C-alpha cells in the first residue's frame, strides 16, 4: 500500500471491533489519508488530544469511556485544533443522534455503511474543518 502524501490529513478512528477498525483504516489509507486509531475510550481521548486529527470517526459503543463521554470530555477540556467529529453507531436511533449533535458532533453514520458513503462523509468533515482551521469540536467555543 502506498504511503499517503506528507501533507495529507490525519483521520482518527475510535472503534472497538478490530476487524471493523482495520477495514475502515485500510479504506482511509487507500483513499490517501493518514490514520490513527484507538479501541478504548480513554485511549481515544488521550490520543486525539495529543495528535489533533483533522477529523474523528468515533464509535458510540467504546469500552472505558463511551463515544458520548469521549465527545463530552473533548468538548469540556479539549485543546483547539481538533477536527470535527462523526459518530458511528450500530443503531439508527433518533435519541442517539440528538445526543451526539448536542455534544458537538458534526455528523452521524449508521453501521454497516458503504465505503463510498464513509469517504464522502469524511470529505465533508474535512471541508468543515478547512473553513475553521482552529475550530474545536466544541459548541462552547463558538458563541
Amino acid at each position, binding site marked *: 500500500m502506498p504511503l499517503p502524501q506528507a501533507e495529507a490529513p490525519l483521520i482518527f478512528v475510535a472503534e472497538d471491533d478490530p476487524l471493523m477498525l482495520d477495514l475502515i483504516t485500510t479504506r482511509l489509507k487507500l*483513499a490517501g489519508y493518514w490514520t490513527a486509531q484507538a479501541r478504548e475510550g480513554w485511549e481515544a481521548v488521550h490520543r486525539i488530544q495529543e495528535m489533533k486529527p483533522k477529523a474523528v470517526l468515533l464509535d458510540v459503543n467504546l469500552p472505558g469511556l463511551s463515544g458520548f463521554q469521549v465527545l463530552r470530555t473533548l468538548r469540556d477540556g479539549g485543546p483547539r485544533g481538533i477536527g470535527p467529529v462523526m459518530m458511528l453507531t*450500530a443503531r439508527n436511533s433518533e435519541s442517539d443522534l440528538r445526543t451526539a449533535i448536542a455534544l458537538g458532533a458534526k455528523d452521524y453514520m449508521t453501521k*454497516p455503511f458503504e*465505503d463510498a458513503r464513509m469517504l464522502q462523509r469524511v470529505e465533508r468533515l474535512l471541508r468543515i474543518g478547512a473553513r475553521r482551521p482552529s475550530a474545536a469540536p466544541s459548541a462552547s467555543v*463558538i458563541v
Partner: protein
Amino acid sequence: MKSSTAAMELIAAQTGDVFVCVGPDSVIRFMSGSARAYGHDPSALVGMAALDLVHPDDHAAFIANTTASFRGERLSPASRTHRYRTGDGRWVSMEGNPRIIRDRRGRPVEMVNVLRDVTERREAEARAEAEAAILRSAFEHGAVGKALITPDGRFQRINPALCDLLGYSEAEMLVLDFRDITHPDDLDADLERVRQLRDGQIPSYRLDKRYLRADGSIVWVELTVSLVRDERGDPKLYVVQVQDQTKRHNAEAALANSEAQFRLLAENAGDLVLVNRPDGVLSYLSPSALAMTGYRPEEAIGRSALHWIHPEDRDRVAEAFQEQVLSRGEAPPCVIAFRVVRKDGREIWVESSPRAHVDPASGQVTHVTDAGRDITQRKTAELLLAEAKVAAEAAAEAKALFLATMSHELRTPLTAVVGFARLTAELADLPDAARSYVDKLLVGAKALMATVNDILDFSKLEAGQVEIRPRAVAPRALLAESVGMFEGLASDRGLTLSQRWNGIPPAMLMLDDDRVRQVLLNLVGNAVKFTDTGGVEVEADYNADGRRFRCEVRDTGPGLNEDQQACLFQRFSQVDGSLARKHGGTGLGLAICKGIVEAMGGSIGVISAAGAGSTFWFEFPADPAAGALAAAGESDLVLADSRVLLVEDNATNRELARLILKPLGAEVTEAENGVEAVRLAGEQPFDLILMDLHMPELGGREAAEAIRADGGPNADIPILAFSADVIVEHGPFDGVVSKPIEIAALLRAVAEAINGPAAEGGGSDALAAG
C-alpha cells in the same frame, strides 16, 4: 154550663191552649179567652162557622175529621191537626183533642175541642222528614252497597248498588238470608264478628269476604257492619255497607301470584337472585347463595350486599347500584363483573345487573333486584387468554428484536469479510490460485450477506420501516442488468433466459431502482432455480395512460397447485422443504417482494397450475421522469447520499428543486421558513443548505447567519442562496443560485458545493460493503 165554661177558661189561661165549643152545625158556640194570643176577639168568633178559621187546603180533612169525631170515631193526632188563621192573617198548626158532649139519649149535642199550637213541632217534623229523605236518598243511591239486616239475618232494606253487585233484584234479596249468599269459607269469620258485635264486644267490624252472586260467581267485598239497638238495648238492625274489592283483590292476587312465581324461579335458580333495599341492604336472597358464596340466605339478609364483594371491586359495584337507584331504574341496567369473596375465603367472579324498581304511585325506588351469575370459569379463561396474548406479543417482539440484533451482529463481521475480500481481489499482484479463492470467498460471503439482509429487510418491512425513494431511472437498463445477472446460472442449467419489452417504455421512470431490482432478482432467481427444463421469459410493460409499470416472469417449471399458491407469499414458507434444502434461501424472498411492492403502492401475484409452469407478476405506479429530469438522471452527476436542506417559502419552487435533486439520489429535507430551517439545521447534519432569501418571519440571510453562529453540525457546511437579485453580497453564503431556477445552473452549483475543490484525497471508490 156556666161553671164548665169558667173551668175551661181557667185551664186555657194556664195552659195557653184554646178551648172551643162547636155545635153539630159546626158553628162556634164558645171560644176561650186564650184565643186573644192569636189576635182574635173570642166573643167576635162566637156564631162563626169553625171552617172559616181553617186553611182552605185543610177544609176537606177538617170536615171529615169533625164528622168522624161526631160519629164517635177516634182519630190520630196527625189527622186532628189543621192550620188555623190568626187575627193578623198568619196560619198556625193546631192539634185538636175533641170531646163530644151528648144528651141523655146519647145524641151528640156539642163538641168541645182543645186546640194546642203545634207549629214548632210540625216544623221540626218537617225538618226531620227532609233529613230522612236525604238519608234515604243516600241509602238508595251511590256506588256503595248498603243494607239493613234484621237480627235474624234477613235483608230488611237493600239499595240498588248492592243489588247490582250481587246480581239479585231487590225483591229477591228481601227473601234471602245473608248467610245464604256468603262464601262458605268466609261465613265462620263473619258469624264470629256478628256474635262479638251482638255481645257488645265490638262497636262495629270490617271484614274482607266473598259473596256468591246470583250467577254463581264470586265477588270480593269489604264489609262494614254496625248494630242499631232498640230502646231496651236489644239488637234491632244491622247496618251494612258493602264495597266492591274485586279490582283490588285481582291486583293483589296477581302480585301474590307473581311473587310466588318469582320465588319459584329464585328458589330453583342456579344463579343468585337478590332483592336489595334502595340503601343496599339485602332483603331477599335465593337459596343458591349457599352453593355459590358459602353464605346461607339468612346469614346475609339484613346486611349490605357489598360485604362479600372484593374490596377492590366494591366502589365499582356500589356505583352501578347507585346509578340504578338514582335514575329510578331509568338508566339501562349495566352488566358488571366483580369478585366475590366466599365465606371460605375463595374468590369467585360474578356477573350481575342490578335493576331498580319504582312504585308508580310515589315514584320512589322500592327495591333493587339483581341476578348474580358465577363466571369464574369464563373469567379464568379470559385471563389465561389475555396472558397468553401478552406472552405471544412479547414473544413476537422478542423475535423481531432478536432478528434485528442478530442480523446487525452478523453484518458487522460480514462487512469485514466482504470488505477484505474485495481489498484482496483489488491487489494487482495476486497469484491466480489466490484470486480464484478470493472470488469464491466473495461469492459465499455475498450470499451470506444477502440472507442476512433478507432477514433485516423483512423485520423492517414488518415494522413498516422500509422507505421507498423514487428517482429517475432508465427502466430498460434496470431490467437488462437484473435479468443478465442470471445468464450464467441459466446456461449452466441448460435453460433459455430472455427478456423483452411490450412496447417502448419511457427513457426514464421515477422509481426506486434498488427495490425494483431486489424484486426482479428474487422472481427471476426463483424461476431459474426451480425450472429444470425449458426456460424463463421476462416481459415488462409500461402503461402510459395508467402510469403503471408491470413485469411478468414466466417459467416452464413444475407449477404450483392452489394450496401452494395460497401460502406462497407468506413468510418463512417454502412450497416444499426439500426444494429449500436443494436450493437454499430463507423462504422470506417472496414475502419481502410482496412487502416491497405493496410499499410502492402496487401488487404482486402468481398465475400457475401444477405441471403447467408459473407466471409471477408485479405492478406498481410510476411516473415518467420529466425531460430535463430525465436528462439529469442520465448525467454523470451523483448526489447519492447527499443530504440537502431546502429552505423556500414558495411551494412551487420547493417542488421544482426537489424534483431536480431527488432523482440524483439526494435526500431532501424541506423547510418553509427561516425559523424552521434554523431548528432543523441544529438537529441533524446536512451536506448542503439551499436558502431562499426572501421569507416571512426570518429572512434567508438572517437564518444563514444564525446557522453559522450556533456551532451546530451545519455551522460550516455550504449554504447557497436562492435569489432573483443579480448581485448578492455573499456574507454567510457560499454561492448563489439565481431565480427562476434553471436545472443546469442548480445542478452545477450543488455539485460544486458538495464535491467542490475542498475535497482532498481520492475516494470515489464505490465498493459496496452491503
